């Protein structure tokens, strides 16, 4: 019986083009639009080396250590962007470049290191930080050589010591580069998972005699209503999970959105997120005894609000909300889905990911319980006349 109902629930859902559009095609279109919008955004925010003119004089030529330090921040190393973009010029040329705004500052060794700038700003601060750090390091070297002259002869020891210094290289606490745009894509995935609630509404409507004529037929048959409900939820879950997986594949393979390499964990997030979405729909469908349109409207409001709080509209909103009301991070299923994906992407440990998954499962359990309590009734107080094609 369960297999029979499940088979036909699958067929019905796969033939429901409207819901398929909103739960699969629409998120794919939206993610493509996001990519188009963010391609300009990331160009605007991508970091390029700060242009600086270095005066090529005798002091510079004699200072090998400073030259090496400059090399370390002007040469591209792996995926890391260079910090400075250097032009080695004469003093006159450097001044011309600065006047024309071609460079942000001039580094002059006279013999002490000087920084000449036209204005103060973010880039100028970075150049100054670099120079300050260099001076600190070179002072340390000088002290070291004074205390242990034998080090001058021991180049390997010197190499080890200098290797401990990185001049202003930005590092993430996590394993991947920070990319603000993934917030939007992860929030879109969370929204899609919660759109599974539309399958949930349909599933619950079609087992309730006071919600649809088909529901009345199910209630008249010699089969337990919960069995047909469970078969429907399982069918909806499989379809929603498949849709979400397709979206993740599309984002990852076509749009090149960054995800963690832990595929099974990402799939687990999709699986649990889909279940949470579907059970949210069955709960709303069971508790609200109004028309389909009203239920859909309520769910649309809920999913879009929760997705908004998870950073769908403004990525920073997610952090503002979490900072202002920390509990929101844990009571918003959309936020839990995005956080689970973040945790996989940024962190080396699974603690945060596991917490999010457990909380999502807890939500699904609560939604299931409320669905059961609202649907379990055997007789209805009234059965409104439901029009054909309900």
């Amino acid at each position, binding site marked *: 019986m369960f297999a029979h109902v499940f088979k036909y629930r699958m067929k019905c859902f796969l033939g429901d083009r409207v819901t398929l559009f909103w739960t699969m095609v629409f998120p794919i279109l939206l993610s493509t639009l996001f990519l188009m919008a963010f391609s300009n955004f990331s160009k605007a925010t991508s970091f390029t080396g700060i242009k600086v003119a270095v005066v090529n004089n005798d002091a510079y030529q004699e200072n090998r250590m400073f030259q090496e330090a400059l090399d370390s921040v002007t040469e591209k190393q792996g995926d890391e962007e260079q910090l400075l973009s250097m032009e080695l010029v004469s003093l006159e040329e450097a001044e011309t470049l600065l006047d024309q705004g071609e460079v942000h500052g001039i580094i002059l060794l006279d013999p002490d290191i000087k920084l000449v700038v036209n204005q103060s700003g973010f880039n100028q601060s970075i150049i100054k930080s670099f120079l300050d750090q260099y001076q600190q390091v070179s002072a340390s070297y000088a002290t070291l050589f004074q205390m242990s002259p034998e080090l001058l002869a021991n180049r390997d020891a010197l190499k080890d010591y200098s290797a401990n210094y990185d001049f202003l290289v930005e590092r993430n606490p996590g394993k991947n580069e920070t990319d603000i745009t993934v917030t939007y894509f992860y929030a879109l995935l969370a929204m899609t998972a919660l759109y599974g609630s539309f399958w949930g509404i349909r599933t619950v409507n079609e087992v309730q005699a006071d919600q649809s004529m088909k529901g009345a037929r199910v209630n008249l048959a010699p089969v337990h209503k919960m069995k*047909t409900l469970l078969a429907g939820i399982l069918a909806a879950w499989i379809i929603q999970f498949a849709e979400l997986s397709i979206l993740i594949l599309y984002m990852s393979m076509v749009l090149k959105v960054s995800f963690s390499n832990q595929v099974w964990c990402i799939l687990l997030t999709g699986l649990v997120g889909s279940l949470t979405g579907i059970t949210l729909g069955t709960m709303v469908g069971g508790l609200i005894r109004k028309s389909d349109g009203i239920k859909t409207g309520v769910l649309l409001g809920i999913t879009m609000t929760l997705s908004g709080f998870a950073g769908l509209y403004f990525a920073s909103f997610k952090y503002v909300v979490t900072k202002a009301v920390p509990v929101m991070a844990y009571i918003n299923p959309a936020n839990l889905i995005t956080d689970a994906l973040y945790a996989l992407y940024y962190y080396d440990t699974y603690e945060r990911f596991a917490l999010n998954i457990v909380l999502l499962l807890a939500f699904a359990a609560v939604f299931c319980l409320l669905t059961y309590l609202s649907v379990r009734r055997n*007789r*209805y107080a009234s059965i409104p006349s439901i029009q054909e094609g309900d």
Partner: protein
Amino acid sequence: MVIKVENLVKRYGDLIAVDHLSLEVRQGEIFGLLGPNGSGKTTLINCILALLKYDKGSISVFGKPMAPDAYDIKKDIGVIMQNVAVFNELTVYENIDYFCGLYVRDKTERKKLVEEAIDFVGLNDFRSFYPKKLSGGLLRRLNIACGIAHKPKLIILDEPTVAVDPQSRNNILEGIVRLNRLGATIVYTSHYMEEVEQICSRIMIIDKGRIIATGTKEELKSMINVGEIVSVESVELDQNLLDVIRRLPNASQVDYENSNLTVTFTKGRNNLLNLMDLLRKENISYGSVYSKLPTLNDVFLEFTGRQLRD
């Protein structure tokens, strides 16, 4: 007894939808439940089917108390609702198979039953069609097939011919009679008195949740005084002659409008002959003459003072 309802009361707030109603449906009959819209027919059916809570009374089906989890009773009941309840994403065959499968687990048996149901409602040429491609009449037939495919012993049809064209309506009515001949007990609700009169072996007329009358159509008609209604078209009469007509034996009501005369007679012999003799004696010319026996509408009218379709 297939269905036994005793002293049933169902309220919606202050409104009493079913008011201390009792009925019995016997094995093998086509039991008609006739009443105007809002008379409580569908509420009564939903109570019998254990879909609705009720305030008072008892209901038993096949001799056992009816309850939502009375699956041994439910497996022998087929219901055809007023509104079509099929899945637009499934074909005709799949829809019937789905609903039949809620009653019959064995695949081979189910396949046979589905084929028989398709054959019964004449949807063989449309088995792979989706419901949206079917006309209203064909859709109703599919709805019926979904309700009867499992070969129930009791079939309840709640206004199955609403908004159906005359050809499909006849097809549906013939099908119901055939199902009855095959052994099913039928409960048929309608506000169309002609349909009920045509197919039902016993009829209950209800209004405002109360029983107005119960019996065969002949028994119901015998409960009222109207024996015959005679209509005469294109006849010119003066007031004196109308008074003479009113004094004819058994004449209970005389209406004259736009040269058309309608005389309602109580039961008696030679009512039509008496009227024709009078017109002939007075040398009155006239057009067509009709004599009509009382209908269930007349029964309803006499008991409630209202037309059945009010």
